[in-house]
């Protein structure tokens, strides 16, 4: 049953990607997969440790600019090197944000991270010598082991590979000591400490991990779009990421994938509307939350339970 379920889910995911490609194009599939990595990374922070970040577009921007600049000034390291650099730079910043955030709780963390997102775009504007400021910059095509990846198709394999790796790692992490420590943190700080787990260390680790995921996604974002500017990393994008995690289900990796896919596809389909796009988008999210308060993953589990009687 388990194996059957897994095969069914992977087939379903492939079918959905195929459908998106047929109706909206491969570019949207690539963008969707990038957002899947972000949502899974954000879920490690939000869903597992309960710290809400409203500034993940900032980490995405850091990753995108680092990967683009590495590609420009040190092309010999290739896509893998550039993506690791992008993730590492974001992770360092994640630690820098995570440390002061240790003193904060709940909405105050959200406020601090929200500010971070704004600061990043402002910093990009000020460092216009390197970043091109408001004019943005073009991103050179990445190369993988010496092969240039120019087309959407070639980039698709890179993004898909990274996304699968990211999901697999997150799933294994969730079942490990680290994942359980994260979950303990979400439930109670005091109880976690009494178990001999350092809340400070694990909170910071969660920030670093989540930022690393998002930084790598940022590098892929830069490759996929081929052009980056501060306008790409607005507050709305950060809020979209939070919505993806909540809609998919806090603490569910599979849920994050579904959440990212749903919101990306919904946004693209609603692009035909001139007037009511924001309203319909917002309403759709609100209705989903009312009908599925635990997100898609909880609703799915409940449906399975009912099916089994």
């Amino acid at each position, binding site marked *: 049953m388990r194996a059957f379920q897994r095969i069914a889910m992977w087939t379903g995911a492939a079918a959905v990607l195929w459908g998106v490609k047929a109706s909206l194009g491969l*570019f949207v599939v690539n963008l969707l997969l990038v957002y899947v990595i972000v949502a899974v990374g954000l879920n490690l922070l939000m869903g597992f440790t309960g710290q809400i970040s409203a500034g993940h577009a900032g980490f995405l921007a850091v990753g995108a600019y680092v990967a683009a600049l590495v590609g420009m000034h040190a092309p010999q390291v290739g896509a893998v090197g550039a993506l690791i650099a992008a993730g590492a730079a974001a992770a360092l910043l994640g630690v820098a944000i995570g440390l002061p955030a240790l003193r904060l709780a709940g909405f105050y963390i959200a406020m601090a991270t929200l500010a971070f997102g704004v600061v990043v775009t402002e910093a990009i504007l000020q460092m216009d010598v390197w970043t091109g400021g408001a004019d943005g910059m073009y991103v050179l095509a990445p190369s993988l082991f010496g092969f240039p990846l120019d087309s959407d198709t070639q980039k698709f394999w890179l993004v898909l590979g990274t996304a699968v790796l990211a999901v697999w790692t997150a799933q294994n992490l969730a079942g490990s000591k680290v994942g359980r420590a994260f979950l303990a943190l979400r439930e109670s700080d005091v109880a976690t400490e009494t178990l001999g787990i350092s809340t400070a260390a694990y909170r910071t680790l969660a920030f670093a991990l989540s930022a690393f995921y998002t930084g790598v996604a940022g590098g892929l974002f830069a490759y996929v779009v081929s052009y980056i500017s501060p306008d790409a990393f607005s507050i709305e994008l950060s809020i979209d990421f939070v919505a993806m995690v909540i809609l998919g289900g806090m603490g569910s990796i599979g849920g994050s994938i579904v959440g990212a896919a749903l919101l990306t596809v919904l946004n693209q389909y609603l692009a035909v509307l001139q007037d009511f796009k924001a309203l319909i988008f917002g309403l759709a999210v609100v209705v989903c939350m009312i009908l599925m308060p635990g997100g898609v993953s909880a609703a799915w589990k409940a449906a399975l339970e009912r099916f089994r009687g």
Partner: protein
Amino acid sequence: MRRTTWWLATLAAVLLGVAAPAAAEVGVTADRILIGTSQSFSGPLVFPGTEEIAGIEAYLEYVNQNGGIHGRKIEWKWYDDGYKPQDAVANMKRLVEQDQVFCILINQGTSPVMAVVPYLEQKKVPLMFPFQGSSRLHGKKYVFTSFTYYDTQTQIVTRWLVEKKGFKRIGIIYQDDAYGKFFLNTLKKELEAKGLKIAAAESVKRGATDVAPQVAKIAQAGLDACLLALVPGPGAQVLKEAAKIGLKKTKLISSGPLTDEKFLILSGGVGEGVWGLSLWPDPVRDDSPAMQEYRKILKKYRPGHEPNRYNLYGYFYTKLFCEGLKRAGKDLTREKLIQALESIQNWENGIIPPVSFGPGDHQAQDQGFMVEVQGGRFVPISGWLGIRDGKLVESPL
């Protein structure tokens, strides 16, 4: 090695079902032409975006009701990018690969436009008249640009102030980013060419609401004129502050897209006497036949929209685009459209100076005229001004 890559790429392409269309021309059938664009229907530029589209649709419906072009009706698909480059790229690829449009007509904003230009050039899809004023789009084969570049605009204004008005002490209040600094640097270069220096330069942070210190410093500097390279909010704030402290000696001059009716409304009636460079006749009051026709068509096909610079832009450049389609003839192709537009010489239109294109010259307009705010509207105080062979030239409006 090369061969293997090639085969792998081909295999991948076939597997994913990416195949080049083999029609006479993409987006063109016996009785219709399909065009499209990505625009701002949400985000910071939603007002200009929806107004440009209103102007475009009004003219296209007018053309379609009068039999179309060479018997073909024009159909359209618009998608929202919310001023985000990633969504602009998604929309363009959807238009070109899924919807198979013939060309792109009028998109908007530096980031969304810059993001899609390499892709459209590579696919050889014509990009008609993006709404933006950066000269970085100069010299692209498949891109036709619209209005006077921002650097040319600053050149025109500076030379007019120095040569025609005899001003010597000129300063600037600019937005503290690449946009504002662009005006600052052009002004600096222009003044240096005249043996002058910037007499005062004050910066304003993006989104700032308090501009009192900057205006005070400008007042102290005793300038003849001060350029405002700002967005409407802070720009209107400067006018209010200048009115409050009674700054009479210094002429305030709105730069670039700031010369717009919305800016005047925001300033709440204190903008009297301000100068600016206008690229368009007054959309509401100019009564030349071409402008009357514009208001008539807009009123008939998009009655909910009042005449303004944005829907005038959409209307005018759609008209120019249709002129290109007409000249391209019955056997329409993308290449023929480019050639047809390049053949346009001295196209009299009654709205802006005659338009000429040529191979390597894809810019529709490179002039503007000085205006002064009188009775809450922009009144012309010069003829059409332009730079020819490095010199300021003036022709009657």
